[in-house]
């Protein structure tokens, strides 16, 4: 490693999780094309930067065999142009610029687009549509919050810098004492490493979050509780009353919540209960809530799909315009029911993390996968592209968990194209195939949208 060929990239952004810390100082060895140091990164960020090197591997595979990018684009376009119910999925680990092209392709082929939100905070999105949400950007927590509650998540491990950068020890305009000016509450069924940072730890029984949240709503509104609630939730009445009082009397309260609510029985009802509680509290004080997102740009995916279609995820274009229906057009369902006859999977690995029946169907249909590393999904794909890593090899825009948009900085070049480049090439080729007509195109007489010129 020569001194001359090392650069420092300041204000770089780590996109491993939804914290999207943009204060990275990267030391980059341009000869070895590696990041040798990532100052300010947490343990996850350090791994993210260290492990995304240039792998000696083909840029594209067709049927598991080496292929050129052009050949792979051709094959991918052929698959998508012919499909009757193509699905696009993933998108949480790529730039907004790429996400926009993905929506454009799906619109054009009258497919269905869904993002990893549907298996993450999709239920919170549904709850949002029912209840609304009182929320904030993370700097408000730093500057104002004197009560911070983490519910159904483990920030010490996911995501680690949340405490220090935003919510617990961070010192702000009206919280110069940092942690001393705050009370931290942790609510979780198991005592995780996060409990060490908490002043109060509540441990409800598994699957009882809704009941506990509803009981807190009642207490906040001054109703009397049936004492049996303590037994069923595993949390004492005293503890509930204490928490309700603290919530009403704080000056700026924050409820962060995670998968403990969305992934358990009740799903959007759990998130909805929490959001409703937050709204109720605004009759007494200023209270906000925020779902904690796990991927670097899943919030970007929500935003892009929402502004382009009107709906955040689970969007179908079969009739030539967007229709929203979680449960029908979400990917676990379109795969498990066998609806999809082709899949474009971008920056995601459903073959690892989806239910068995969904994975089985992925094996039966032609899959086009874009990923930076080999994954189970890339292995089963008919066409696999190895792409550049966003925020390391590319610029682009991402949205932090609180909807703050940030521009990425490139650390070093990659020989592999970015997701955006691949998707644009696919878009162009699919359009040509559809316009040529003949045996391609959906039977409904596909009308094709012009590519938007950038």
């Amino acid at each position: 490693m020569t001194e001359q060929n090392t650069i420092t990239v300041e204000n770089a952004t780590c996109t491993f999780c939804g914290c999207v810390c943009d204060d990275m100082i990267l030391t980059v060895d341009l000869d070895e094309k590696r990041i040798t140091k990532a100052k300010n990164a947490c343990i996850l960020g350090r791994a993210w930067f260290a492990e995304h090197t240039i792998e000696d591997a083909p840029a594209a595979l067709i049927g598991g065999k080496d292929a050129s990018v052009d050949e792979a684009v051709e094959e991918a376009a052929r698959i998508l142009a012919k499909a009757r119910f193509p699905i696009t999925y993933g998108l949480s680990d790529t730039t907004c610029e790429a996400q926009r092209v993905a929506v454009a392709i799906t619109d054009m082929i009258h497919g269905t687009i869904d993002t990893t939100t549907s298996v993450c905070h999709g239920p919170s999105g549904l709850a949002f549509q029912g209840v609304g949400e009182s929320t904030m950007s993370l700097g408000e927590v730093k500057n104002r919050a004197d009560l911070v509650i983490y519910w159904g998540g483990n920030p010490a491990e996911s995501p680690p810098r949340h405490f220090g950068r935003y919510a617990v020890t961070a010192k702000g305009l009206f919280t110069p004492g940092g942690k001393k000016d705050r009370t931290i509450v942790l609510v979780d069924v198991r005592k995780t490493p996060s409990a060490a940072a908490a002043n109060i730890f509540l441990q409800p029984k598994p699957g009882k979050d809704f009941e506990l949240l509803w009981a807190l709503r009642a207490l906040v509104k001054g109703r009397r509780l049936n004492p049996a609630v303590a037994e069923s939730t595993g949390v004492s009445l005293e503890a509930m009353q204490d928490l309700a009082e603290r919530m009403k009397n704080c000056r700026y309260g924050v409820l962060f919540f995670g998968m403990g609510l969305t992934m358990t029985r009740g799903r959007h009802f759990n998130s909805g209960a929490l959001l409703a509680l937050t709204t109720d509290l605004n009759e007494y004080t200023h209270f906000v809530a925020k779902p904690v997102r796990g991927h670097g740009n899943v919030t970007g995916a929500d935003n892009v799909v929402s502004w382009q279609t009107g709906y955040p995820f689970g969007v179908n274009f079969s009739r030539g315009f967007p229709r929203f229906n979680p449960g029908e057009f979400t990917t676990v369902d379109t795969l498990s029911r066998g609806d999809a006859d082709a899949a474009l999977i971008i920056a995601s690995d459903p073959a690892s993390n989806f239910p068995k029946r969904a994975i089985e169907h992925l094996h039966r249909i032609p899959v086009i996968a874009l990923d930076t590393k080999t994954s189970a999904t890339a292995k089963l794909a008919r066409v696999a592209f190895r792409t550049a890593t966003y925020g390391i090899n590319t610029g682009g825009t991402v949205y932090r968990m609180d909807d703050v948009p940030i521009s990425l900085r490139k650390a070093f070049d990659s020989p592999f194209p970015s997701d955006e480049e691949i998707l644009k090439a696919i878009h162009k080729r699919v359009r040509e195939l559809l316009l040529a007509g003949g045996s391609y195109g959906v039977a409904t007489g596909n009308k094709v949208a012009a590519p938007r010129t950038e």
Partner: protein
Amino acid sequence: MATSLRIINGKVYDPANNIDGEVREIFVQDGRIVADAPADARTIDARGMVIMPGGVDIHCHIAGPKVNLARKLQPEDHRHDPHPGTLFTRSGSGGTVPSTFATGYRYATLGYTTAMEAAVTPIGARHTLEELHDTPVIDKGFYVLLGNNIFLQQLLQEGRREEFKQAVAWWVNATKAYTTKLVNPGGDEPWKGKRNANVADIDEKSEVFGISPRNIIDAFTGVVNELGLPHPVHIHCNNLGHSGNVYTTLETMKTAGDRRLHLAHIQFHSYGGEPGKNPKSAAAEIADYVNSHPNISCDVGQVMFGKSTIMTADAPLAYMLRGFKKGKWVNADTECESGCGIVPFSYQEHVYVHALQWAIGLELFLLSRDPWRIILSTDHPNGGSFMSYPKLIRLLMDREFRKEEMKKVNKKAMRSTRLPDLDREYTLNEIAIITRAGPARALGLKHKGQLGPGADADITIYDEQEDKELMFSAPRYVIKSGDLIIADHEFRNDHAGRILHVAPAYDEDIVGTVRTFFENYYSIEFDNYAVSDQYLYDHEVISTT
């Protein structure tokens, strides 16, 4: 892609050039209006048609973090109003908060070619620019929210006026904004920091900053005028919607003195009566003041019955409106800068206050003696969707229609306004002013809102019809930057449109001063804050004077 055009036989309404319904030829070349017929021009025979410059919406909410929250919030709002794609256009969804593609295309189908997003937080500017890039056809820009900016208030508190001015100039530059926006100035801090309180008195000093809303209004008005921005400070006054707020509105305008100031959706700020009791109309007082003060411009913010979405940086207002129905509600605080509130809403004819609001808006239009400065808007989507502009135009032009509509609304509200006695009918020329020439002039957009040589070739051609709602709903031709976008009522081409922004000069030293505050109290890095040019795509800097 721009073709050369020769538009003949149409009746031209170009108030900026004193053309009032004369049959004139219009020539287009290279995206501009030109004086002479270009060679090889395509001819459009506009016999029986009315030609106007493309519409200019001076105040709407169409792109950015707040809009997208409202969009995501209401799938039911879009579901009944799909926007199918075509060979040339992307699909989308409608309702009161349409998706971005649908927004652009629908403005085009009304013959509008420019729209200004009225309220964007600096930290959200990047997001707004991304959405505007996906808003086709129209030229667009936005106003940046600075009226509750903590650092700027601190500077005012400390009497650092020169630095305040430089910081404002820097902020407008850094965000690529068109002008500064104030929303309920001074109201953000009590909302976030004092258990959801608000500011009610324009002279009430903030407990935290020691300055009053009037101090803020005065400072911004002065600075923006000094900076020579083409459009002055754009203000959503304190006490929106409250009975008796006419006092606050008049005092706000008086604070400006003879300096330019633009009041947003002034209808919502034209209420008499006592605080806490039912409002009355104070439209006449407000119209009087605006009429007699040429430095003041405003947009009406007309309420139209039916569904709307309240989306505003006036977070306490949104919470108050939620109180009536206790339905879904969104509040989003933005660190050090602003906030917003969103509430699905609807205005109903039989409800006294809604009918009163509707009437007050119409009173303001009908009492206006200077259509150049009392401009058409519904504060989309707060007062109603921009898709209701044709109906509003008909209400202004067609006295009989207006009378029929008045019969349907709350009678008590009608009696407490002058509306039943106002017989005025707007002429096509006046409509061209309040929807095109006036807003373009108020925005300082010399090349828009007019059809003289050198102007942008943004042209709308309507079939002249008796039913003005029908007429303005469906222009036969819409030309944008010389591109024929709509011909014979159908889309022919897509078009990206450009970002309009200003770049006032500022002293570089201020950057270090802002940085120090920023590094302590924001949650992102200062060097990642300002918006880079990569988000502008096709854009135009409108010069300062």
